[in-house]
């Protein structure tokens, strides 16, 4: 929906799929994978590397 110049491409660390990220993401930011929904941390930008973010249990709550 947003034009190509607006996005970066990275590999989903779980499935290996190519996924698109907003062009302005920064190292350390958390985004979610459109494939698995997992929260991913941006580890580096050139190339873009993503890693599963540690789950915040407290978020969700017993």
């Amino acid at each position, binding site marked *: 929906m947003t034009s190509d110049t607006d996005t970066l491409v990275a590999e989903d660390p779980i499935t290996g799929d190519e996924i698109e990220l907003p062009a302005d993401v920064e190292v350390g930011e958390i985004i979610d994978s*459109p494939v698995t929904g997992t929260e991913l941390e941006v580890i580096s930008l050139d190339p873009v590397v993503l890693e599963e973010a540690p789950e915040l249990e407290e978020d969700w709550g017993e």
Partner: protein
Amino acid sequence: MTTDADADAAAGDAVSGETYTASVIGGTGFTGGELLRLLSGHPNFEVVQATSRSADNMTVGRSHPNLRGLDLRFSDPDDLESVDVLFSATPHGVSMGQIDAYFEAADTVVDLSADFRLPEADAYDEWYDGHESPEYLERAEYALPELNRENLAGADLIAGGGCNATATILGLKPLVDAGVLDPETDQVVVDVKVGSSEGGAGGGAASSHPERSGVVRPYAPTSHRHEAEIEAYLGLSVSFTVHAVEMVRGASATCHVFPGDPVSKGDLWGAYRDAYADERFMRIVSGGGGVYRYPEPKAVAGTNYGEVGFELDPGNRRVVVFSAIDNMMKGSAGQAVHAANIALDLPEDAGLEFEGLHPVGSP
């Protein structure tokens, strides 16, 4: 074996008119989510932006599980993209400060908050904390088509009605128009019951599940701000009380009306049919058999319908009017899309065709 496929017969399915780009400010919120659902399924809209400060860069589906199929991420409300129509679904007080920025980004602005609902700046001093951009108030049109359709065509600033005000206005307007109810002299008590989504996605202790479940809780015993809209648009000062009850979606207004002159059931049917017989989204439900004999929120859940009905109390000449809507739809996002359809000269029900469910629990 089959008859001819007839595209025209399939009401609402034909795509007519232009496609407009749209953005939603406050996209993580409840009404923002409904707007995204309605606009992304609308044949004439293309959603290009949804904003959030708290979920910037996250997918829309993370907030709204029904929209997991939508390929869109939230972006910052400070970076507005240029669109045809901007829908704003922020808490009141936000749009009145952003309205210039909104009009820089968009030709048409539809605001769901209270910020442009009241015609006079004075009323904001009385009921809210004053107004930052009073110069826009005259330009704004109240979104409720059953009340204000004639002024919506071509409008470029549309102010969505309050959900409780909408339910009440839909219930009482036919009586005012028919002269059954004299706004100057007759007394009206409005006793409203609402679901928890009225409070938005925020929510503190009182809206936690253990505390909010199963309540019949007087949450606005008197002096609810929606009275101001009812007064502004029906000329009617009502005695207004709102109760939180156990449901998520829905608002139901019971209006106890004491007309000066005697009135018959036939008069009432006449008044309501005059008002709503040709309305795409209004149903009169008043007696009859089966389980669903009067308006109730379950019967309209998920839809843009309003149901109204009435009963007559011969003993003391009271008319009881019942009015039910889904606050997320007819009471906010649906009403906004309905008004935008009219403003842009699209079919009134484009994007709003969902007919609702039966059975449905506490929706």
